[in-house]
């Protein structure tokens, strides 16, 4: 007789054997072919499933504030222009062409004929005008209202100094023409029209349903996909929009975005073949070294810089030589290579790579001898008498390890002691904004492909400056660049400004951001891009692709 426990063991063994027989090897691999991380069986239907990274806060374009929000908005709505999936250059979308006046101040967009919303209303230039004015209205509460800051009277309107919306430089003289007047030439204005904040929204639906207009039952949109279901903290399901002007070119039948905020769980779902794309920023950093060998792992540069900011309103950081000494004593190579396992690149500039035509000024570098000389000139030879400063970080294992590395470098090279202060996010933000720190760990990510998105932060009094630093020569160059119409001269002026910033060192750049993502080999049309922006409209699932796995059991 077999005991109950014995029988249970047999059943378990049988389950295990069945499971093992069905499962593929740890990594799907063809004989001699590339290795992939987990299941590579294409989905049965043309439905693309990806990780949104977190629950979107809002999918009303005017209120959307981050990557997850933006991705949902861009599936549902289409703007005047759209980014090229590879280069992010501005391409026609709802507008099929545009003219820019010779003085660079007037942009005239021409909409395609026959555009419609999902409820059959025609898409008109007035819809765009109303949507953009809505972004600017203070009562809308759009955090990106200043994207339109270069438009005539836009800032005054947002700050409530002007209440007549007709005085704002956005007009729709007829149904298919949108005219935008700028207060000063803005080289990157066209790029801004790709941004999700400026997507058009349906006025009548918003007026009828108020802030519930984005509910799946109410929402009316004009983009490639329609929102069918939304379950909070779980998933968004979209199906193809047959009324979309370019529906014939849309090959996916649907898209599913999962609100996954745990990076390990999301990576497991990718491995099990439930999600087809683990976008940049959502891979646990400890996984990266071991993921490198897989063919579906994609590493690329990202328009972002990680840096330390110095509070120049505090002693001794008001001293130029002290700031330079600290910056030159940071071994950026060691941080990127040893600590971050080459998942990032060491970087000594405040603007990242990837701006065509922009010449970076001389970067700051690791030079301990020079750093010691600077510190001596600052009044602290050998680090003697240097007060105990603190590095402020927000709670994160990686940030702490980095701060500890910098702490050790400064001790070793300069003979000074610093402490590390760790605060949870809310307190950290408050401290950073109100200059309640000595040295702060920060990063900045570009909104559009232009050095201006990095350099404008450090203009005197800018809300994102957060160092207390002010330099008239720097401010003057940023103003001059904004008014400059000739692209090469404009970039040269910005480069001069960056040289001032690096020379004055209110900030010490440390590494260039990178995206590390996982893309299933059967996904086509999805490319790494410098802004981690990925137009998903024209993706497709390639069923002919690698056929690596012998999967019969789909965990979904």
């Amino acid at each position, binding site marked *: 007789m077999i005991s109950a426990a014995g029988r249970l063991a047999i059943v378990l063994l049988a*389950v*295990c054997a069945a*499971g093992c027989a*069905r*499962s*593929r090897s740890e990594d799907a691999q063809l004989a001699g072919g590339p290795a992939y991380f987990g*299941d590579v069986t294409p989905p049965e239907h043309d439905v693309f499933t990806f990780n949104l990274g977190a629950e979107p*806060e*809002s999918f*009303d374009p005017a*209120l959307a*504030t981050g990557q997850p929000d933006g991705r949902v908005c861009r599936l549902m709505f289409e703007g005047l222009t759209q980014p090229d999936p590879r280069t992010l250059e501005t391409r026609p979308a709802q507008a099929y062409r545009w003219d820019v006046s010779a003085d660079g101040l007037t942009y005239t967009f021409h909409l395609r004929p026959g555009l419609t919303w999902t409820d059959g209303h025609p898409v008109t230039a007035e819809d765009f005008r109303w949507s953009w004015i809505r972004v600017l209205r*203070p*009562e*809308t*509460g*759009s*955090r990106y*209202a*200043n994207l339109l800051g270069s438009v005539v009277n836009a*800032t005054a309107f*947002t*700050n*409530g100094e002007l209440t007549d919306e007709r005085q704002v430089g956005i007009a729709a003289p007829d149904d298919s023409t949108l005219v935008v007047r700028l207060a000063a030439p803005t080289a990157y204005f066209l790029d801004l029209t790709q941004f999700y904040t400026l997507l058009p929204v349906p006025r009548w639906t918003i007026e009828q349903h108020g*802030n*519930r207009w*984005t509910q799946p039952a109410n929402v009316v949109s004009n983009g490639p996909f329609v929102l069918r279901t939304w*379950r*909070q*903290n*779980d998933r968004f399901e979209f199906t193809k929009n047959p009324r979309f002007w370019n529906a014939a070119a849309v090959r996916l039948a649907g898209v599913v975005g*999962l*609100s*996954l*905020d*745990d990076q*390990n*769980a*999301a990576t*497991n*779902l990718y*491995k*099990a073949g*439930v999600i087809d794309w683990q976008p940049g920023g959502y891979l646990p950093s400890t996984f990266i070294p071991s993921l490198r060998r897989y063919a579906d792992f994609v590493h690329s540069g990202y328009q972002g810089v990680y840096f330390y900011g110095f509070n120049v309103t505090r002693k001794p950081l008001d001293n130029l030589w002290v700031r330079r000494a600290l910056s030159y004593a940071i071994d950026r190579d060691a941080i990127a290579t040893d600590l971050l396992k080459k998942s990032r690149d060491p970087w000594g500039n405040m603007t990242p790579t990837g701006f065509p035509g922009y010449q970076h000024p001389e970067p700051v570098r690791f030079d301990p001898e020079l750093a010691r000389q600077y510190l001596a000139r600052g009044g602290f030879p050998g680090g003697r008498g240097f007060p105990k400063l603190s590095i402020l970080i927000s709670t994160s294992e990686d940030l702490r390890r980095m701060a500890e590395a910098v702490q050790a470098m400064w001790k070793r090279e300069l003979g000074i002691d610093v402490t590390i202060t760790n*605060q*949870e*996010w*809310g*307190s*950290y*933000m*408050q*401290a950073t*904004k109100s200059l309640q720190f000595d040295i702060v760990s920060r990063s900045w990510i570009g909104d559009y492909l232009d050095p201006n998105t990095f350099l404008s932060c450090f203009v005197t009094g*800018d*809300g*994102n400056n957060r160092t207390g630093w002010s330099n008239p020569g720097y401010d003057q160059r940023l103003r001059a660049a904004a008014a400059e119409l000739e692209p090469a001269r404009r970039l040269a002026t910005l480069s001069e400004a960056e040289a001032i910033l690096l020379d004055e060192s209110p900030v010490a750049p440390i590494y260039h951001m990178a995206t590390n993502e996982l893309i299933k080999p059967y996904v086509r049309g999805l490319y790494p891009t410098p802004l981690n922006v990925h137009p998903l409209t024209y993706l497709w699932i390639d069923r002919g692709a690698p056929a690596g796995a012998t999967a019969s*059991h789909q*965990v*979904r």
Partner: protein
Amino acid sequence: MTRFLIRRLLTIVPTLWAIATLTFFMLRWAPGGPFLAERDIPEGVRAQLEHTYGLDRPLGEQYLTFLGRAVRFDFGPSYKYPARQVREIIAGALPVSLELGALALLVALLIGVPIGVVAAVRHNRAEDHAAMGLALAGVSIPNFVLGPLLVLVFSLGLFVLPPALWRGPESRILPVLTLSTAYVAYIARLTRAGMLEVLRQDFVRTARAKGLPEHQVVMRHAMRLGILPVVSYLGPAAARILMGSVVVESVFQIPGLGRYLVNAAFNRDYTLVMGGVLFYAAFLLILNLMVDVAYTWLDPRVELA
């Protein structure tokens, strides 16, 4: 009984008020705020946002408004998710947490009580040692270790169960197992201790003397009193397990309440935190009351006054 209920219900009100007040002021005194972000918000927009949420009013006035609304369980819109009412968020996430918790509690009882009874009946024998060894292991393994281990074996190794998400019956298995393990262990120990004490008492001896078969003595007579410690443990345990386990919901990415509340605190989402805390407190107080009532039913010696 009625007097008891009324008295207890009356003490719940000041308790909730104290919790609400403490939470309200602790949140406001925490540095940072809901509208602080890496990217600066235009001044006009910030002023408008603060006005919309009443943050530009004196703190005392904000507090009174908050209390007035809280009585009706209205906390207004979430700060982080401006298009959603706190009430809706809780209503949407609660059923998920309740389902996960109820299943886990059920599993814990179905496994834990029998293990405890067997251990007590077979006191100091091999079965007892095995059961208590298992219980010790169950209590000692934290959720955040057990969950990923189960995922590693069943999802990434055997490919038989999904590694995460809350979709379809098969997705329930791993999270429920993970969540129930610690409770199984605890319930087994409580049952064993309770049963050991009861089995030594006179009325059990009487029952045996009457010639009742042993299983009847244990199941019908001893069990009813022996599981009293489990019942009193169930109140707080149910409140904890039903309101969502932050760890299990996060490991398995389950759209329950626990995940929301923790994120809300980090985001300084004042309204969502307040709504969540008060809801949780009320839930806990009411469950404790129910446990007291259940006591009288199980143990005739207990009188409510």
